[in-house]
Structures are given as structure tokens and as C-alpha cells.
């Protein structure tokens, strides 16, 4: 059987998800193929900073202008994914205060509202900020939950008819001469290989797009740059704190949901290592030292975990050395560039500009399909994103929302009306740190392409809190077992989930984090006997 689509999009990161949604909203028949889960690559491994663009204002005005435009769009279409915290760019005594003037001027030129404020005012606005600051600029930064944003795009794409295949890897392009006709896809869960056809295939593979392009017979030069980050166990700050200087290591502290995140570092890594990124002890030390300069409280705040991602940087076409690396959006029509028809690559860019990237890619797809359809993603809210803050949305649904209901609203926005606990059973908490009830877990398992506990974590925050899965993993595995009916798989999955949590914990394995791990060890290995014989 031939499965026919208008467009095949490879890559379930935010770019692929956004492109799938955009194409689906334009009425195309869309197939989205992802070899792991959605948001597993760079999408899920960054700060979650809703850039105002200020960071790029001095060095890259084009990116900065894109950022502020998309910033304002996301605040409207993805309200439940965005926290409009505002941000500070602080100047410390060792920084050059003259840079502030250049910075503000560049921001204003890019359309970013940047306002110099008194350092004392900055301390009032964000009490955790380094009190020795000598300058502060207020900008419209915020935070965005990339998992939620990606999942919402996928969900909306599906609501508009898209087919989504996760744990499905493109193993081969089906080519007819110099035309890409479709892809062969290996379903990692069943081992089956299927063929899918479409007149246009979009490579949205991020850093892995390099290999995909190679498979299609074209060359896209990617330059993997690793960035490491640390997650702290609670919100130390409620306002994004940046250093007002040329972008450097560990100079952004972002409050995201119940935690805050310091990052990043930047190191070139060999392409082959992209699949196995982990923060090194030296990077952890650097992040801590530099981070404490932004907010001294970090020095005595519990670190939940360390992680690393790879930025999908693209070298300019005629710059094989990689010196001239752009962080801007790169759209390659391989027919024009390489003579390969029916294949385009969308890469570069940032989480912030995913929607714009998706729009550009979808426009290119439509041009190829000779379809005239406008992009409506800039004005169409994602599922769950309706006006009103947490409190307003919750009060609109329930007269007196419970804490659990409030927490659900905090994660899924207006969708909470359908996901929230109907009875005491559905209202029981699976994850106590993040207040995730059975109803939300079950709905994610049922409707959000959840195949294992790590997927579940990305959709719901189960296991993302202080205990890193100690209390909730076993409960969630029980729900998975009930849904799938496959207990052996659920048990193996439980082990791999605990292992996945451990991977981010041992690089910061001391203090309460190691104590938490020791406790988890005794509970899972000894009491629950997960390392015992069956």
C-alpha cells in the first residue's frame, strides 16, 4: 500500500512540529516523522528563554528583530507555554558599563523596548539579583516551556489531520532520479519498514539534518556546538537575568515553571558525539561560578541536574571552514542549490523563531506544490492558549479551583477543562512535586503519543521535580502498564526512566541531590526490588 501525503516532514523538534502545524493549518496532508520522541534534540535541551532579542541586538540585528516579533506573537498564541516574566540585563563591577549604552541603542533600533533602570529598582524587581550590580536594563524577556510548545504544535497538527510517527526513523529516501519521492521509515517499536510518498519532503532534523541531507545526496554543513546547563530545584529568580556584555558562558538565568536554569557553555564537538551529550565536571564548575555572579543565591541552592544539548549551527554555503557561522534561519531549496527536486532543508534559527522558520518552510512547500495558502500561525492560538493568566483561566473553569486544578491549568492552559480530574480517583497525584494528577497522565498516554515514561515526562512534567521521579515513576509506570497491558515492558521502562534521571543527577551528585539518589537507590533497588530476579 502506498501512503501518500502532500508533504513529509522529518524531525519532531520544534521546527518540524511547527512546520507540520503550519502545513496542516494550510490544508495540506502532512506526515511528521521522528526517530525518537518529539522535542528530544536541541528543542528540549536549552534554557527555555523567551528571548526579547536583546541578547542579539548588538551582534545580529536581524536575529534580534525576528526575536522580538516572534516574542510578541508567542505571548499571544502560546500563552500556556509562556511566562511573561520580563528580563534584566545587568552590568557587574567587572563589566564595561559603556557597553550598556551601545546595547540599549541596538535594542531600540531592533524594536526591542529596552529601559535603563536604577540598580536599586532592579533589586526591587528581582531580589535575587547580584546586589553589587552597577547597571540594569529592563527588557521584555520571558520564559517558554519548549516541551509544551512542541507538544502543542504536534497536537494542533494532528487536530488538523496530520499523521505523526514517533520512534520512526527515516532509513532511506525513495528517489526517482534526482527527485525525492518519499521515504522509507523503520518503526523502532515494531521493527517494520514502511514507505511514505509525498511530492515534497522537508528536512527539519536539526543537527541530525546533516546526515539526512547526506542520505538524500546533498551536503548541508552543520557545526555542532555543545551547550551545557544546570537546573536548580526551585525558582530563585522570577525575572530573567542576563549579563549586559557580549554573549559569553553562563550569562543567562531563566525561571522556568517550578525551576530555574543557568546556561550555557559553548564548545565545538565532533558530529559523532551529538547523540550522547552530557555536561562535564569542568562545565558544571564554570556554570556554578559564573551563575553565582548573576544571582549569588545559586551558590547555596540545590541543583537538580545538569544536561547538555547541541546547537544546530549552519556554516554558510561557501564557507567550509565554518568560521562564518550564522545563527540566522537557513532555508535551502535543494532543487535550486543542488539539483535535487522535492527536498528542502530548514535549519539554523532558534527555538524563539521556530514559527517563522515553519512559515518560511511551509511557504516553500506551498510554492513547490503550487498551492496558494496563507500562513495563519501568527494569529491562531495553539490548543490551550486562550486569553488570561493562570488565575483567570482557572477561575473561568471552576469557581474555586483546587491546587491540583491550578497546576493543571498552569501546564495545559484552557485545555484543563477537559483534562482535569472529574473525580477523586482521577484527581490523585501521580507526581507530587509538580502536582500532576492521574487524569493528566492518562490523557497524555492516550492522546499525546506517549510510549514510555520519558515521553510522559516531556508532556506532563512527571518526574521533573525535586525527587526526580523517586515517588512518581513507579506510579506512572503503573498507569503505563494499565494502558498498554504490557507489564514487562512497563517494568523495563521504569528502569530506563530511573536511569535517564540518574544521568542528569550524577554530574551534580553531592549534597541533597546525592542524598536523594541514595534514597531512590534503596527504594527502587532494594524495597521495590527492581534489580531483583524475576
Amino acid at each position, binding site marked *: 500500500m502506498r501512503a501518500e501525503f502532500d508533504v513529509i516532514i522529518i524531525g519532531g523538534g520544534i521546527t518540524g512540529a511547527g512546520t507540520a502545524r503550519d502545513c496542516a493549518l494550510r490544508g495540506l496532508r502532512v506526515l511528521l516523522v521522528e526517530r525518537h520522541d518529539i522535542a528530544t534534540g536541541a528543542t528540549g535541551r536549552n534554557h527555555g528563554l523567551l528571548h526579547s532579542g536583546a541578547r542579539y541586538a548588538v551582534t545580529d540585528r536581524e536575529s534580534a528583530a525576528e526575536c522580538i516579533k516572534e516574542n510578541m506573537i508567542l505571548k499571544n498564541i502560546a500563552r500556556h507555554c509562556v511566562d511573561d516574566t520580563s528580563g534584566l540585563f545587568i552590568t557587574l563591577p567587572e563589566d564595561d558599563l559603556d557597553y550598556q549604552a551601545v546595547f540599549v541603542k541596538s535594542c531600540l533600533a531592533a524594536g526591542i523596548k529596552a529601559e535603563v533602570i536604577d540598580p536599586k529598582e532592579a533589586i526591587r524587581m528581582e531580589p535575587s539579583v547580584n546586589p553589587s550590580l552597577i547597571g540594569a536594563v529592563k527588557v521584555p524577556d520571558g520564559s517558554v516551556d519548549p516541551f509544551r510548545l512542541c507538544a502543542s504544535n504536534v497536537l494542533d497538527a494532528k487536530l488538523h489531520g496530520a499523521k505523526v510517527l514517533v520512534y520512526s526513523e527515516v532509513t532511506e529516501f525513495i528517489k526517482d532520479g534526482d527527485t525525492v519521492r518519499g521515504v522509507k521509515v523503520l518503526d523502532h517499536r515494531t521493527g517494520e519498514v514502511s514507505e511514505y510518498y509525498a511530492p515534497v519532503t522537508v528536512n527539519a532534523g536539526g543537527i541530525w539534518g546533516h546526515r539526512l541531507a547526506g542520505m538524500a545526496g546533498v551536503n548541508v554543513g552543520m557545526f555542532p556546538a555543545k551547550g551545557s546547563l544546570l537546573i536548580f530545584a526551585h525558582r530563585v529568580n522570577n525575572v530573567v537575568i542576563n549579563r549586559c556584555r557580549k554573549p559569553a558562558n553562563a550569562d543567562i538565568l531563566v525561571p522556568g515553571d517550578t525551576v530555574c536554569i543557568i546556561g550555557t557553555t559553548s564548545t565545538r564537538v565532533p558530529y559523532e558525539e551529538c547523540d550522547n551529550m552530557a555536561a562535564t565536571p569542568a562545565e558544571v564548575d564554570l556554570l556554578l561560578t559564573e551563575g553565582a555572579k548573576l544571582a549569588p543565591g545559586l551558590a547555596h541552592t540545590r541543583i537538580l541536574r545538569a544536561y547538555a544539548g547541541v546547537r544546530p549551527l549552519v556554516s554558510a554555503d561557501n564557507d567550509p571552514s565554518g568560521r562564518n557561522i550564522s545563527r540566522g534561519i537557513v532555508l535551502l531549496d535543494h532543487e535550486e542549490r543542488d539539483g535535487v527536486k522535492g527536498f528542502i532543508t530548514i535549519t539554523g534559527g532558534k527555538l524563539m523563531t521556530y514559527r517563522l522558520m515553519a512559515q518560511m518552510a511551509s511557504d516553500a512547500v506551498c510554492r513547490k506544490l503550487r498551492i496558494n495558502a496563507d500562513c495563519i500561525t501568527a494569529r491562531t492560538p495553539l490548543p490551550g492558549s486562550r486569553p488570561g493568566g493562570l488565575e483567570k483561566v482557572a477561575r473561568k473553569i471552576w469557581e474555586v479551583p483546587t491546587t491540583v486544578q491550578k497546576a493543571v491549568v498552569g501546564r495545559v492552559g484552557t485545555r484543563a477543562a477537559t483534562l482535569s480530574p472529574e473525580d477523586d480517583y482521577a484527581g490523585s497525584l501521580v507526581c507530587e512535586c509538580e502536582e500532576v494528577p492521574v487524569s493528566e497522565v492518562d490523557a497524555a498516554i492516550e492522546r499525546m503519543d506517549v510510549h514510555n515514561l520519558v515521553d510522559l515526562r516531556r508532556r506532563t512534567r512527571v518526574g521533573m521535580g525535586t525527587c526526580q521521579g523517586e515517588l512518581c515513576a513507579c*506510579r506512572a509506570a*503503573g498507569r503505563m502498564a494499565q494502558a498498554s497491558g504490557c507489564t514487562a515492558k512497563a517494568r523495563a521502562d521504569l528502569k530506563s526512566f530511573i536511569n535517564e534521571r540518574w544521568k542528569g543527577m550524577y554530574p551534580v551528585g553531592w549534597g541533597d541531590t546525592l542524598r536523594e539518589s541514595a534514597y531512590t537507590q534503596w527504594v527502587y533497588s532494594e524495597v521495590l526490588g527492581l534489580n531483583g530476579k524475576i
Partner: protein
Amino acid sequence: MKFDVILIGGGLSSLVCGIRLQKAGRRCLMVSAGQNALHFSSGAFGLLGSLPDGTAVQYPLEAIPSLPAGHPYAKIGVGKIAEYAAMAPGFFESCGVHLVAAAAAADPVLRSVRNGFRFTATGTMKPAWLAMSEVAFFPTEEALRDSDGVPVESALIVNFAGFLDFNARFIAEGLEKNGIRCRLETVRIDDVERLRKNPSEMRSVNIARVMTREQNWKGFAYQVKELMKGEDMVVLPEVFGLGGELIPQWLSEMIPAKVTYVGTMPPSVCGIRTQMRLKEAFESAGGTFLLGDEVLDPEVEDGRVLCVRTSNLGSMRLVADSYVLASGNLFGNGLTAAPGEFREPVFGLDVDYPQDRSDWYDPDFFAKQNYIGVGVKTDGAFHPYIAGRVVENLYVAGSEVGGCNSLAEGSGAGVAIMTAFKVADGILGRQEPANA
């Protein structure tokens, strides 16, 4: 204030040691900074489940001579371990804690202790030496038998509707692997339904508190009987008997099958009960127990502890002839870990740990983790050192003692009990004629 012995820590090891000493006429003070690891007990005590290289152990005593010299068991010696092991069930019985052991012949001595198997909440088998009376504990790994030795063929697994901390499916799968047909059922009890109105407090211990009411456990037993279709075993979550073993016993009498209990996520009901019993035994023997207090500011001079203080008692000097440190490992804050080192926070004792932090961890969570095996350096009598100098009137017992990875070996409770006995003997031996 003056005592004969001050024990720091209120968990299994400290209590066993304190009870022995108090019963032998020593005036003991026990200081515990909060509750302890018995609260997440598996319901069974391991002596030695496997050797440091991972080889499974059937007869723990037989395996002890092959342990490395620094191992706490090696320091105590197999002869003493055998003696203590024989004594342990009676010791606990006298404290009101009834423990069951896998049957073994008394002779030869090295085979007088045999590992039985505890059936876990994820459907697996873990070797164990002694088990609390109600937990699912079987003499061998292969055959699950009822109390008359007849192999079990079918089991009914009953859970409270919507109780997430007891995973009946995992248990069923494990039993089915052992050839037992399983059926799952749930029951509802009004008082438990009321509890459920709180989204987070449907916990083992809260259910257990509700189930101490007669109407509730009786109602539960009736419902189970109704649900049975001739199964020879009924498996229940271990949430009965917070007040005592009687409720599980009564349930067994009312339900016409072998009734066994499988542990839930923490807290552990039978573990809490055991802790309560041991504490009562210690106090009724005349011991003083300070809960929620922390030992601070010890004075140590010339290799001797002169006194300690606590946060609640402030500047008051607490003086004793001997001191026992049994405040646990990381969980009990008996040890704390900083990026480059492990510390023992009360006395600053010398701690044994790998110098390179990367050796603390294995990337596989379920592999042997070296950080779990970190402990205080001690001599043969479990005296610790400060900067290389032995502290003569201070002893270390339980999981704070270095030299073994009790999680990997399945020796956590065993080390706690054996070091407690050994330290108590050491303290008594010092002050009494050898034959006392």
C-alpha cells in the same frame, strides 16, 4: 547530664545496640534527628545476598570468610556472626518484633542460616535472612508454597481502588512467571474513600491508620472473601497492622487462603511498626530517647570524647563513658557529600571514599554505586579515627561503617544488627568481667 552510653541515631542499629546495653544495666541516651530508614524498610532483613563480585549467596555464613578484610563482617569474624545470627530472632521477639527465617538445619553451623526470598512489589525476588511476619517471604526462589508446604497454584491480588503505590500488575506478572495463575480485584472502603478526597494522601501509612478500625478491616476481609474464586493465595498491599501484627493475623483467620502482603511505596507500615516496637523496648528498659534532636558540638580530647551537646538541650553537656555513632549513611545525614569529599558531620571522623569523584558513580543507576559503600574508617572494634588517631570511647555501628556496599550485597540490616551487637559487646566487655 550523665549517662553510661550516648547513642547518636535512632534507627535499627542504634536501637539494637541501645536495647542490648540498657537491658544489661547501662543508662543510655539515644538522640535521633528525626525518623529513620526503618520507615522505608522492605519488611525483610538481609544478611548477605551476594558477594562483592555479585555472586549470589545461598548460605551467608559460609560466604563470610571470603569477604575482604575491611568488611565489617570480617572484623567481627564468622564465629561471632554465627552466634549473633542465632541470637537475633529471639532478641527481636523479646522486643515484640516477630521475624520469620527460612528453615535451615542447625548443623553445620555455617549452613545454619539460609537465604529465603522476599517477593517484591515489582514482581521480583530478593534474597533475605529474616522477614517481618506478614510479608511475602518464601523459603526458595522457585517454589511459592503455602503454609503447609503445598505449592500455590492460583492467587487473588487485591488492591484498594485507585491506590497508586501498589502495583498489582507487576506482582501478577511476577507470580505468573512462577506458574501461579493470578486475578486482580479492587475493593472500596468508605473511610479510605474519604481519605482519597486528598489528592496526595492515599499513602500506605494513611490507609493503615484507617484500617486499624475494626469495622474497616472486617469490612475489607468480607469483601475479599466475596471476591475469591477458590484461589489458594491472597496477596494484599502491606497496609495492615500499624498498631500490631494482630490485624494481619485476624485477616488471615477470616480469609480462607494463604494471605500474604507485598510492600508498597514508602512509608513502610511494618517498618514503622518495627521501629515503634524497638523504641518502646528501649524506653521500657529505661532508656531515654530524644526524637527530633541533633547532636552538636562534641568535645574530643586525647582520643576520647568528653561530652556532646544537642540542639534542643543547648549548652547542657551530655557526658557518657562510651558513645555510639549510628546515625546512618547519606539518608540519615550520618555522612554528607560535598563535590570533593565525604564528611562525617558530628565528629569529623575519617571517612573512606574514592578520591576521584568520577569513581563515586556508575552511569548505570542499577549497577553497584561506590558512593553507597562510603563509610567511616574503623578499627577491629569499630572505633573510628580523627585525623588518623583512634577515638577510644567512640564506636560506629550500622550503615555509617565503611568497608561494604550493603545495597549491592543485600547486607544493610545484617550490618546494622551485627555491628550493633558487636559494639554493645565491646562496651559491656570493657566494663564487666569477660564472662558477663
